[in-house]
Structures are given as C-alpha cells and as structure tokens.
C-alpha cells in the first residue's frame, strides 16, 4: 500500500462529477451550504443557533430540526422526480432524453432512499418529538440526550447521502440494493457504499429513537392516563415504535452483511462463494414491510386527531381503533414475502403470504370506517388538515384496493415490477403518509410556534397536490397494465405510452407547485405571524392535553403536571368548566444543553466517509471520537438545570406574541 493510498484510500479526482447535470447537483449542494453559513455569519447568529438549537435537548426544538432537514431532503427528492419524469416523457425512439442510463439509475435509487429514510422518517420523528410528550402529559422524553444523538445520527446520514453528489457517485442498484447487482463485482464504485452507510447511520438513529419513545410512552404518561385513555396519536406511535424496535435491528444486520461482502470480501450474498442472494431479499423485507407501517401508523394517528377535532365529535370506535393498530402491527410481520412472490417459493408459501396480505385490509378498513363514522352527523369544519384527510381517505382506499389486487400471487406474477406497483405504493406513501404529516404539521403548528399557518396557501397546496397526484399516478396504473416496467429510461414509440408519461410529468410538476405553495405558505405565515397568532393555546377547540397549555408550548411543557380521568381529557375539562384557580408553581428540572449529540453525529459522518473510501485512519478517528463523546457524557452527572418557580410563573402569565 502506497502512502497516498494510506492517506486518501480510494479517493481521487476521478470521484468528482462527470457531466453537467451532476455538476449542477454538486454546485447546488456546495452553494446551498455556503449560503446558509454566510447568512448565519452575516446575522451573527452562531451563538443563538448553537445555544438554542444545535445543542438543545428540548424535544420540540429537536422536532423542528427534524422537519427542517426533511424539507431540505424533500427538495432534493423532488428534483429527482423532475428529472425522472422529463426523462420518461421524452426518451422515446430516437430521442434519448436528458439523462444517461447510469445517471437515471442513480436518480431513481436516490429518490427512493431519500424519500423514505430522510423525508418520511424525518417528518415522522419530527412530529412525534413535537407532539407525543405534550399529548401524554409529560415534560420530556424518557432520554433527552439520546434523542439529540438520534437526531444527529439521522442528520449524519443525510449529510453522507448529499456528499455523494459532490464526491463519488450514488448507487445504481435501486432503493433496496438487491445483490448480486449491489455486490462489488457488479457495482465496483463507491455508490452502494454511500447508500449503505447513509442508511446505516440514520437507521441506528431511528432505532435509538424507537427505544426512547417506547420508554416515554410506557413510563412517562401523566398520572391517571391508563393505556385506554391515551390519545389515538399516542397509540399509533406506540405501535410504530414497537415495530421500529423489532424491525430496525434487522436492517442494521442486512446493511452490515452487505458491507462486509463489499469491504472485507465476504460471501453472504455474492453469486460465488456459496452466498445466498435471496437471504438478502428476505432480510431486507423483514425490515422493509414493517417499515411502511412505521410510517403509516403515526399518519393514521394524526388523522384520528384531526377528524375528531374538526368534526366536533369524539373519535368513533376508540377501542376498535386500538385493536386495529395492534392487528396491523402483528400482521405486518407476516407479509414480507409478498414483495417477491416471483422468487419461486412455491404455491403454498405464496398462498399463505397472499392471504395474510389481503387480511391487513380488514383492520385498515376498520379505521377508514371509524373515521367516516366520526364525520357522520358531525359539525365539520373544512380546514386544510381536514381537506388533507378527505383527499387521503379517497386516494388511500383506492391505493389499498390496488394493494389487495397485488396481494393475489396470480395477479402479482403479471403486475410485479411494473408501474402498477409503483403507482400503488406511491398512493399509500404520498396520499397516506405525506398527506397525514402535512395535516399534522398544519394542525400542531400553532402549538409549537404560537401562530397559524396561512390557510389560503394551505388550501392551494392541497388542491395542487391532489390534482397533481391523480395526474401523476393515474397514468402509471394504466401503464402498468399495459406492461410498462418500472425503472425504464427508454421505450419504443410503437407502444403508445408517451402521452401517458407526458400526463404523469404534468402531474409531477403540479405536485412541485404544491410543494412550492407550502414553502410560500411557511414564508407568508412567518411574515404575517402577528396577524394570525394563537392567543388561547386552543385554536381548533381541541380535545387532548396538548391544547391545555399556552402556545407556543414552553420548554417544560406543563407548568403543573396534569392528572387524567377521561379519554378526551381536555374536552372533558372544558365541558366541566371548572373555575380557574391560580396554580401553585414549583421549580422544574429540565435537561441542560449538550454539544455531545452534534459531535457524535459529526464523528459518525467521519466513520461513514472513512469506510466508503477505505480511509482506515479516518475510521479509527471517527470510532475513537464517538466512544470519547459517549464516555465523557456518562461521566457528566450535572445534566439538569432548574427553572425556578418564579420564572415558570412569569412565562405562564406572559402575553402571547
């Protein structure tokens, strides 16, 4: 090994981008980072950002940071959409579109990985951080520092996946990198390693978050809040976190084994050496199927809160909703094989997994009907969260029916790997997961910031998303029936597919306009924050505990910890209309800030970069750094800070905005 190979590993100037579009991506990333750093310096905001945000252990601030990272990653994911849609609309016959085949493959691989791991997961953990402690009457999560470390590991993964735009390439093996294509023999560059390590690091963050929120729900509910009195969102998070805790270790193992194959020449999934590729496919879906329920369950929870609040009624069928959640959690472990019916496991095995898959429609149907019953004879307010719900309920039901079609192995043999499948899972994840998170962000925004999101831009965004979605994915269902496979970068004009791809591209651009409307909505709302404040703390006439305190919720959440006697505790409190007495405030302990979380994230990025480029000394630096941060943190026994009772009283009696 030469000295330069020791210092730089596999890194060389050949790792810089190859063509104009790739250079564009790299420059946007570098430029964006530089602009942000320059703005922070210009406004002299480093101290504020460090103290109030980067080192904060307040779950509400961590939640906002999760959502901001996700929004940035969303922009990148949508750029990928634009490139793919233009490519498929124009690359017919003699024309070959704007992308090379390799670049197209990198882009669809990045799109899937980013949207699942860094957009959907980020929004989910962001909203859970914002809302869960408030809803269960807790002042914090169970392990505040672990929460910060989890967030920074998530950010480290996001940083690595963006680094691949600048240095090296990205995986061309799809969002789940099936071997043997993802093995060294067929993907010799750093692309798959970027995929492995950005997901591995973010995944460990998610796993730790799962442990944290599970402990929060089990151990930190307000006095009197038995499980059957928890708000429905807390129940769905409970289910999702149980899935995280059981599913993510499998992802950790799967990624580690693939990395061992690629880095240390092992033979888990290689074509030679006795490896078994189907073991990879089984393992990745043993994580991957529960993962989609990890994303959708909290969205179900959000819709349950939104529908009950804006219908002015209690949620119909609370108990059946709870059973439906746990039925989904259980069944989600028995369906993974439906992702590869065509592997050839035999008729009996396929029949079992097909039936199990179809059965999941039952608890999901229970939930759909309960939401509709909640609306029935309710006094419905058509706010934008409610609009997201109604868009969801129509599209999600259609997408779910498409899923039942796919659950039949016989139909799946025809439809698998086609655009029908792509349309199905986008219906579930866009109109299910994303619409849910959009509703949730709009719904809880005033609680976190103290002012409303602008409703006009919210409604515009909704209609653009809805119409855009139907135009973008309707054609894909049809194309799938016509035999169009997924991941197609070129096709023959005689197939007559082009007009459908053009419609899909129009839909995708409407979706982008919808996203742009949401950005405008955020800017307008911040600009006009004095015009639409939430002065009461209960802007929607809500039912659960998070609406019982002032907005924005103070750092300690509850000045006086609540005692719960009813299911919709805050609703019952308002009905009972007890006379307000001035509460006796006490000193409150909150966690001190800690810079160890962001340092762990930074060292984790170093570890990932070191392994990706085989720079072993960098790996050692990263490992020693992470270990040092953890040990230093455990030696620190002075981790709490007291907010005196007088200060609590001052904050509680302060006027809003």
């Amino acid at each position, binding site marked *: 090994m030469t000295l330069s190979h020791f210092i730089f590993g596999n890194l060389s100037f050949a790792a810089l981008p190859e063509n104009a579009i790739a250079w564009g991506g790299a420059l946007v990333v570098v430029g964006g980072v530089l602009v942000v750093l320059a703005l922070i310096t210009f406004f002299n905001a480093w101290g504020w950002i460090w103290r109030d945000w980067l080192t904060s252990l307040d779950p509400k601030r961590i939640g906002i940071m999760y959502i901001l990272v996700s929004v940035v990653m969303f922009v990148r994911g949508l750029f990928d959409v634009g490139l793919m849609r233009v490519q498929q609309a124009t690359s017919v016959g003699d024309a070959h579109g704007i992308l090379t085949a390799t670049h197209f493959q990198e882009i669809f691989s990045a799109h899937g990985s980013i949207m699942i791991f860094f957009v959907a997961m980020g929004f989910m953990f962001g909203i859970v951080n914002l809302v869960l402690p408030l809803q269960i009457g807790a002042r914090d999560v169970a392990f505040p520092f672990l929460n910060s470390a989890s967030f920074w590991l998530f950010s480290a993964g996001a940083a690595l996946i963006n680094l691949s735009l600048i240095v090296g390439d990205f995986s061309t093996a799809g969002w789940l990198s099936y071997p043997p294509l993802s093995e060294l023999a067929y993907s010799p560059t750093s692309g798959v390693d970027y995929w492995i390590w950005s997901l591995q690091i973010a995944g460990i963050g998610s796993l730790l978050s*799962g442990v944290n929120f599970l402990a929060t729900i089990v*151990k930190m509910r307000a006095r009197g809040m038995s499980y059957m009195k928890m708000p429905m969102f807390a129940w769905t998070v409970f289910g999702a976190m149980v899935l995280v805790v059981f599913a993510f270790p*499998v992802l950790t193992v799967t990624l580690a*084994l693939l990395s061992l194959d690629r880095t240390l*020449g092992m*033979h*888990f999934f290689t074509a030679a*050496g006795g490896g078994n590729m189907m073991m990879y496919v089984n393992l990745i879906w043993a994580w991957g199927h529960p993962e989609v329920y990890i994303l959708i369950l909290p969205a179900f929870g959000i819709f349950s809160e939104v529908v009950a609040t804006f219908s002015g009624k209690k949620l119909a069928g609370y108990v059946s909703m709870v059973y439906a959640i746990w039925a989904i959690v259980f069944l989600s472990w028995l369906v993974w094989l439906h992702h590869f019916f065509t592997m050839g496991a035999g008729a009996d095995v396929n029949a079992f997994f097909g039936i199990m898959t179809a059965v999941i429609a039952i608890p999901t149907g229970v939930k759909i009907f309960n939401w509709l019953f909640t609306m029935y004879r309710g006094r419905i307010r058509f706010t934008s969260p409610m609009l997201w719900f109604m868009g969801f309920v129509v599209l999600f039901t259609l997408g779910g029916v498409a899923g039942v079609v796919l659950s039949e192995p016989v139909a799946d043999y025809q439809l698998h790997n086609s655009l029908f499948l792509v349309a199905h899972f986008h219906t579930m994840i866009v109109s299910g997961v994303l619409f849910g998170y959009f509703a949730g962000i709009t719904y809880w925004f005033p609680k976190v910031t103290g002012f409303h999101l602008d409703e006009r831009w919210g409604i515009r965004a909704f209609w653009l998303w809805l119409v855009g979605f139907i135009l973008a994915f309707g054609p894909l269902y049809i194309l799938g029936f016509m035999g169009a496979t997924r991941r197609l970068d070129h096709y023959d004009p005689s197939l007559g597919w082009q007009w459908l791809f053009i419609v899909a591209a129009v839909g995708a651009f409407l979706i982008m306009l919808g996203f742009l409307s949401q950005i405008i909505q955020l800017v307008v709302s911040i600009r006009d924050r004095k015009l639409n404040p939430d002065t009461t703390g209960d802007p929607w006439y809500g039912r659960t505990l998070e609406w019982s305190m002032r907005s924005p919720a103070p750092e300690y959440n509850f000045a006086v910890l609540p005692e719960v006697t009813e299911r919709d505790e805050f609703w019952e409190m308002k009905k009972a209309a007890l006379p307000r007495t001035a509460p006796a405030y006490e000193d409150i302990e909150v966690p001190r800030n800690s810079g160890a979380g962001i340092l762990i994230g930074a060292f984790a990025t170093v570890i990932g970069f070191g392994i990706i480029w085989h720079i072993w000394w960098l790996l050692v630096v990263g490992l020693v750094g992470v270990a040092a941060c953890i*040990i230093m943190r455990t030696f620190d026994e002075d981790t709490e800070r007291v907010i005196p009772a007088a200060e609590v009283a001052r904050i509680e009696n302060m006027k809003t905005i």
Partner: protein
Amino acid sequence: MTYKPEELAADSKSVFGFFTYLMTDLVLFAALFATYAVLHSGVFGGPESEQIFNAPFALLETVILLASSFSCGMSLLAARRGSSRGVLTSLALTFILGGTFVVLELSEFARLAANGAGPGVSAFLSSYFTLVGTHGLHVAIGLVWMAALCVSIYARGLTRGNMRKLALLSLFWHFLDIIWIFIFTIVYLAGIIL
C-alpha cells in the same frame, strides 16, 4: 439506602429503556443466527464446520465467560453492601475473565484464518466469523464500559448514577452470556455433531 420517588422513577425508566435496547440486540443476533443457519451449508468446497471447530476450546471459552458472569453478579452483591472496594475487586476479576475470553476468541480466529478457513473463503465462514465476532465485539465494548465505570466508581464512589450504571452493565453482561450459550449450542455443538 432510601431514595426519593422521582429517583426511583428515573431508575425504572433507565432499566426499561435498557431492556428494550437489549431486545433490539436480541433481534440483531436472531438475524445473524438465521443467516448462519441458512448459510451453514454454503461451504463452496471449503472446510465444513466439523472439520474446523474445536469443542474443548469452545468449552474453555464458555467456562471463562460464565465465570465472568458469576464475578459480575458478585459485584452487584458488593454494591448492595455498599462496599466500593468489593465492587472494584469483582469488576476487575470480571474484566480479566472477559479480556481472556476476547483474547481466546481472537486466537481461535487467527488459527482458523492461518489454516485456510478465513471469513472470505465461503459463505459459511463469513456467517460464522460475523456471528461469533459480533458477540466478541459486544464483549469488548462491555469491557470498555466496565473500565470507564471502574474509573468512575474509584473517583466518586457508589453514587446513585454509578449504581444505576452497574445494574445496567450487569444486565448487558448476563445478556451476552445468554447469547454465548446459544452460540456454543448452535454453532459449536451442533456444528460438530450434525
């Protein structure tokens, strides 16, 4: 010793959280065991399990690791008596036994690799080294934790925080013992008999 209720609540939270973490680790090992079971026959013309495993050596490793669990338990008893000297002595013994276990495992790995049975030879050997090595890595991390905790107990005595960490460390250590029992049975014993 008497504790304030909020301190007890904090402890039960930590124990619950740590137990949940151990369950995630259990799933992690389950995935590795499943991979080992699937790839056990993937020898690709290389050595098979009964040709390379050394049962007496694995038994020696087992005895040493179980002995370290015993001394780890002794440290908890000493902590309950409030004797930080007793805790440090039994933790030191645990550290020596655990360290011996790691050294023995590494020597086993080196012997295999030198005899043409390294992890890159076949899928079977890849899965063997990864499963057993992951356990060894856990033990090594436990040793680092133990050393740090000893420093903390030496410097500060049996504070509330140190007591809690000792309890969690002992959970971790016994958990690794259980995993090893499965490795001994499924990898070594079954690998030699079957």
